């Protein structure tokens, strides 16, 4: 479904008030593929290139070299209309549900906005959009009674559910989840993770799940890729990586993971 082939992204050197900075190679020859219906986890520390890679997939930024294929189409070669159609199929849920919802918009407006943008493809009139928004809210565990409220009336977990409903609105097949639970408490995190699993089973979604929390990745993903300084250090089935990591970096990362176990 998604093929990332030899993608590199270099940010050029910059000259500024305090002298020049050297170029930064944020991604270096990244190769990854995600097949339909699976969840790929991308793990890495801050500054490892996780977000840069997401931006390439959404085509908010273009790779310096290499290419990204979504359902066989090279994303860099798409014209504006084709790109817009593609963006209905690839959606994202961000980390901070407090910052990613416009406080001045009602939940109805937030969830119907993507349908309005992609109305050419979806062909929904105003009434149908509202109905669909209510359906989506029910799907994520909220209800039609929440349609005309504003984000500030919701808790963090509920807000993240709204973000998920908004992402599902244009009917995507691939969902990029950029640390969707790291701003939430564990008890709420568990609910949101279970919701994501449930949605995947019901809607046949494909997940590209980014996190620095190895426990969450282990819980939700079929496969894991570990990224360090812009390079994929290891990739494989979740169980295999957690049980028998091959690379030195993966081993050290797993050793540092704070597990809840009884101390010796």
């Amino acid at each position: 479904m998604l093929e990332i082939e030899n993608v590199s992204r270099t940010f050029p050197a910059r000259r500024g008030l305090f002298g020049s900075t050297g170029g930064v190679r944020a991604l270096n020859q990244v190769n990854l593929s995600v097949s339909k219906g699976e969840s790929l986890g991308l793990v890495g520390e801050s500054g490892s290139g996780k977000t840069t890679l997401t931006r390439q997939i959404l085509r908010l930024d273009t790779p310096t070299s290499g290419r990204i294929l979504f359902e066989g189409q090279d994303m860099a070669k798409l014209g504006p209309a084709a790109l817009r159609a593609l963006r209905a199929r690839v959606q994202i849920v961000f980390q901070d549900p407090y910052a990613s919802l416009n406080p001045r918009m009602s939940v109805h407006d937030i969830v119907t906005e993507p349908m309005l943008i992609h109305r050419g493809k979806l062909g929904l009139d105003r009434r149908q959009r509202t109905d669909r928004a209510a359906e989506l809210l029910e799907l994520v565990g909220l209800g039609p009674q929440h349609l005309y409220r504003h984000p500030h009336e919701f808790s963090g977990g509920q807000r993240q559910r709204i973000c998920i409903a908004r992402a599902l609105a244009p009917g995507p097949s691939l969902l990029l989840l950029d640390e969707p639970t790291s701003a939430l408490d564990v008890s709420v995190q568990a609910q949101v993770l279970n919701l994501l699993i449930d949605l995947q089973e019901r809607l046949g979604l494909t997940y590209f799940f980014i996190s620095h929390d190895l426990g969450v990745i282990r819980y939700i993903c079929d496969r894991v890729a570990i990224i360090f300084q812009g390079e994929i250090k290891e990739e494989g089935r979740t169980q295999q990586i957690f049980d028998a990591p091959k690379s030195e970096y993966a081993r050290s990362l797993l050793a540092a993971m704070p597990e809840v176990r009884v101390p010796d």
Partner: protein
Amino acid sequence: MASLLEIRDLHLSMHSFEGAAKVLSGVTLSVEKGQIWGLVGETGCGKSLTGLSVSRLVRTPPAEYTRGKILLNGTDVLTLDEPRMRALRGRRIGMIFQDPTTNLNPSFRISTQLIDVALAAARHDSKILGLPATAGRWARRQAARRLAIDMLTEVGIPDAATRVDDYPHQFSGGMRQRVLIAMALVGQPDLLIADEPTTALDVSVQAQILDLLKQMVTVHDMGVVLITHNLGVVAQTCTHVAVMYAGAIVEKGPIRAVLTDPAHPYTKALMQAIPRRDVARGALQGLPGAVPNLVQPPAGCRFAPRCILAQPSCSKVPAEHERAAGHLVACPVVQAAHHA
């Protein structure tokens, strides 16, 4: 002998537009030297306020201590005036906060910032610099600088003698947190309060900082209160743990006892919400319901509305019972089951 820190039945309410929110209701905790207490709980449960109360960093008003005591080496800090409180902060009580970037002043070298703390602490106890009380300013400054370098070396900053004159932006996040630990330890505190010290850091750096913290406890013979929302961090670091929910401690005790035999329904629910190794996909248990409104909290046990074991007896404020040596649980239902 008095405990290093003893919090007795602490009640704190916060004045808000909706009325007085009872944010802490009956927190009781005692910390001895050599112990690392993990204070865990979810957002808004009062764990940070408990920590801030010890160094009296909660502004009154809007806050008001309605009942209880906080005894540090036998003195109630709630009765001290501001000058005497200032003599304790940074000297008897060291503090480390979550975000290492905002807690250092970006416009001063870290040497300046560390020396300031050392000189302030030395004003209350000249032994810290190893100088007689009559030493001159220059001598004190030189001694404070040496102390700063020694502390930085101790917390694992390589080449401390030159790095001491760097600015905060020249350090990485983990290194800045080390600098802050050094700063907290300069006054040789008896008690260290660490409020989410590793939340902003990557896991590998987090592991290093927690190891450092453990090591410092043995070297300096302190007591530590580690505030966190991460039970994994507690399991890795602490000797004791106290679980908080909506302003009260529901369960506390030695780490082994609480983790092997969690008794309070909230502790159990919290542990079941963590994606652990043996949890199958989809089998994680979330906690239904929401945290209670603290302006009008439920009478009695505050967890009762969300609790699977709730009984009519839960409408009374739950008393703690001792389940095992030092392992206290505030739940009458669990107590009844335990004795049955």
